């Protein structure tokens, strides 16, 4: 019961030292091209899921690289694995394989 009407907000800061970066390591090994991302947002701009919902594939994979995996649990299932993002990426990131690798991790 929140008697006084006050609550403590959860810290938004990425605590890089404490975060578990296992998924980030798996991604880097399984999909080496994922390391080439420069955060341009081309993938998000073209993504149908991203145009209709909160889903942002650029941001999700960048968060995963910092060990922030929480949003993946609620968001990643929106991806239809259509591969449009793959077609536009200027850095040749194999985005679909990267998403597949993240999906396997959160479902395991």
């Amino acid at each position, binding site marked *: 019961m929140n008697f006084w009407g006050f609550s403590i907000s959860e810290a938004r800061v990425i605590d890089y030292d404490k975060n578990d970066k296992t998924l980030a390591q798996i991604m880097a090994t399984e999909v080496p091209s994922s*390391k080439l991302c420069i955060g341009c947002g081309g993938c998000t701009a073209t993504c149908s899921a991203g145009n209709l919902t909160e889903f942002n594939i650029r941001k999700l994979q960048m968060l995963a690289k910092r060990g922030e995996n929480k949003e993946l649990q609620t968001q990643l299932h929106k991806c239809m694995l259509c591969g449009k993002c793959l077609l536009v990426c200027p*850095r040749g990131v194999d985005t679909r394989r990267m998403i597949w690798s993240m999906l396997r991790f959160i479902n395991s």
Partner: protein
Amino acid sequence: MSVIIIGAGPAGCEAAYRLARSGESVELIEKEAEIGGNLNNWYQLFPDRKQAADLKAKLRKNIEHPQIHLHLKSKPVAFSRQGDGTIQLTLDDGALITGKALLVASGFRTFDAHRKEEYGYGIYENVITSVELENAFINHQINTSTGHAPKRIGLIHCVGSRDEKICRLYCSKLCCVTAVKQAIELREMLPEAEILCFYMDMRMFGPGYEEMYREAQEKYNIKFVRGRLSEASEDREKRLIIKVEDTLVGKPLKMTLDLMVLMVGMEPAEGNDQLISMLNLQTAPNGFIQVSDPHSGTNCTHQKGIFVTGCSSSPMNLTDTLTDARSAAVTISEYLNS
């Protein structure tokens, strides 16, 4: 009568050599005991990882040309013109040098990182500058102040550049690529370390630079975080705790580093202001020497017979500096023959 060149760094040496080869006699003045300028602080050059010492040896050999007279440990102290416009320069040892043209190649100095106090340089032991890292590469030794191999290293871009707080609005141009080069060199020495670059924009403008950035990510596993360091503090183990925003995910981020490298920018050379007032030149808004036209007069100043080259007029990388020196030699030859 000859061409006088102030500064025997890469720009001054290259221009001297080109002028000598085209038949001019050159008086080359250098304040230090050896030539090379800032090149003496570099270990390997980008993008081809050439040894800086090899390039310097080549420059030194070139200026052995019989038409070039090198004055080491000399500074100009007075300037005047004779009736026919001939330039007269008095050196600090009392020597008087005359010439038909004067080329300023006084170069740059690196930003004094103490001025960016919140980054802790000079306060925390494990904060070093990119110049100090180059020197560490020369000695093949990278250790923290407590004598350990660093496990996590952060390279901080834009220290002393693009920052109104220290009155430096311009981009120094070479520190992004230096950071990428140094990150790769660090990786080669420390295969297990985590290495991160914290940048505002990646300005990889030169040939081979963007490719090197790609290679740094893919092959050398260097991580890039877009965000400017706000402040650093030190923990009991002398590690640094840094705070940035990971702007591409829109969240503040904190982490500890064992070693933090500040990518210091370029400033006008020491004595730049005195030189400008002595020669009656104009100061550009960025504090360097103003050229007469940004397209067609990049080696000309507002004074007849006085020219400028290399980082005296704005920050430049080494490739552009050498090109600019050759351009200055052509400009001066044209002037002398007109």
